[in-house]
């Protein structure tokens, strides 16, 4: 891009406080407002229960709690331990399905 003399003024400290929303944030807000995010969350929950992922995670949590002792575990611990395993074990079919849905949403929302 050529540097134009008419380029916008460099943002100064005042404007820094109002950061422009990133694309991610815009998408997120649009999805929440239209109710699509809720639908996708429900769909995701349904799929994860169907394929047994939720039960696997539950079993992992139980095993971890048993190992550590019920009074020595916090929710943060569990989240920290479970998250990598959880992310890794999501079936590809579910990922694909959700990505397709999101893509369709983006197309329809004309972003």
């Amino acid at each position, binding site marked *: 891009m050529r540097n134009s003399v008419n380029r916008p003024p460099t943002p100064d400290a005042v404007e820094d406080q109002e*950061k422009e929303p990133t694309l991610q*944030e815009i998408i*997120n807000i649009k999805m929440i407002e239209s109710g699509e995010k809720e639908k996708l969350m*429900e769909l995701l929950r*349904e799929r994860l229960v169907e394929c047994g992922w939720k039960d696997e995670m539950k079993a992992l949590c139980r095993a971890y709690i048993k190992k550590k002792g019920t*009074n020595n575990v*916090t929710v943060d611990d569990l989240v920290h331990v479970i998250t990598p395993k959880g992310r890794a074990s999501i079936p590809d079919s579910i990922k694909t399905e959700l990505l397709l849905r999101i893509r369709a949403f983006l197309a329809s929302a004309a972003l």
Partner: protein
Amino acid sequence: MSSKINHHHQNDKTNGQIFPQPCPHLADFHARNGTKPFRAIQDCLHIKPPGGRAAIRRDSSEVPRCGVCGDSSCPRLYACMACAAVSCHVPPHSSHVAIHATKTSSACSHEIAVDVDRAELFCCACRDQVYDRDFDAAVVLAHTTSIIQSSKPENLRKRRRIDYRPWSPDLRERSLMVNNASPIDSMSSSNGDLPRGLRGLNNLGNTCFMNSVLQALFHTPPLRNYFLSDRHNRYYCQSKNGVRLCLACDLDTMFSAIFCGDRMPYSPAKFLYSWWRHASNLASYEQQDAHEFFISMLDGIHEKVEKDQHKPRSQGNGDCCIAHRVFSGILRSDVMCMACGFTSTTFDPCVDFSLDLEPNQGSSMKTSSTKSNHSCNCEADGMNSSQNCGISTLMGCLDRFTRPERLGSDQKFFCQQCQVRQESLKQMSIRKLPLVSCFHIKRFEHSSVRKMSRKVDRYLQFPLSLDMAPYLSSSILRSRFGNRFFPFDGDESNTLNEPSSEFELFAVVTHTGKLDAGHYVTYLRLSNKWYKCDDAWITEVNENTVRAAQGYMMFYVQKMLYYKASEKQGTS
């Protein structure tokens, strides 16, 4: 697995429900905010219709975002109970909610927050979820009012179910059905009143032990339903695995043969051959023990299934195969040190209950009293309850099975707490009941000391309906500690999900004769009539004949499965 039954309970128990003690910050919040601290939050509780999830929103279209970093896509956002400021919590990167919590003012503390998407309390100082009865009550209230108020039918309909639509077959479907099915004609009236599924089994050479158990299994409701509804398809199984030994396939063949309506006695030769290959040590034409055959057969069915799965599944849950799904239960064994009271508990899966017959009747005639009346422990000297006039009963055997037994001085158990071998008290109880309980009466005594075996012919009275509740771990333990509730090891023992404890008798395998020369016969109960299955001969008999028979193995099925299955032939 051993656990200490601790008298310093960390959990609070009321109404039989475990409730964790509040953390000091939550207790403080309660103290500061009076009797109904969460009243204000009720207005903000929105129940989202699809799943009925509770969320915290000031208005239904609010998009919560962190007050510090403006992030609204964070998975965990918390709203402070004191000032409603929303912050994010992303351990270990950043936790704006924890920073918020450090803001203290004289009026209120900002340590308790609520997850905006899940309506769950969080203590920022302890960095852990906390639980409060009043809050949970408010959430439940919001749930129930939302269901009542909502006029949308979606709320009432359960998710993941398709709408009911009546169906009738079109021409193509109709021809498909006609060509591939044969109608169940009223065989029951035309063939001497024998109901469907009764067919004699030829004796192939001292195989009455096998025939008797097979007859009982053919009419075990969950097992019968499994095979008759094609859950194990022998054609598919063999084509997948080649010509391999599969007892389940042979069983499937037999089920088809038994229920096809043909009344000529069937010869289970192929099955016998397969079983010999599986249990080669028992492969002979000698007489065998029916119970041993039963165990061996369940094992054979299990083995085949386990080879297929990659994940080993626990037998206690019955997830591994149909044999365990039907017959497997969990036994709990408690060993209590007599010196210090420390109790060690183990759980073992079991497929049947092997019960000893009580010893000499004459010497111990106590007044009968049922298990539930006992409120104190240490009945080690044995009150042989429910003995009426010296007749042994099945309940009596079960009482004996679950009563505390003093392990003698030659069997001292190593106590974890005392760190020495101590005399102990052992007690068995049933942690989880199977769908079908098989009671095996130990009538064959093999004494290695006296180098002889003998058969115990003593008559055993058995009921047609049996309630196993007094033998469950919950009952046994309650009576040990005087009706107090305390947490069980392992997991959430949700009594709502537990099957009921009432059982109905449907098959009795009896033995007549001597130890080495005897005969097995099975009595089956179908539609409240009794049928004697003596190898190839099936006859209807009187209930009293069955009651007077010498029971060796008794099969009881859970009452709810019994009524559904066998009341009316041809409709289940």
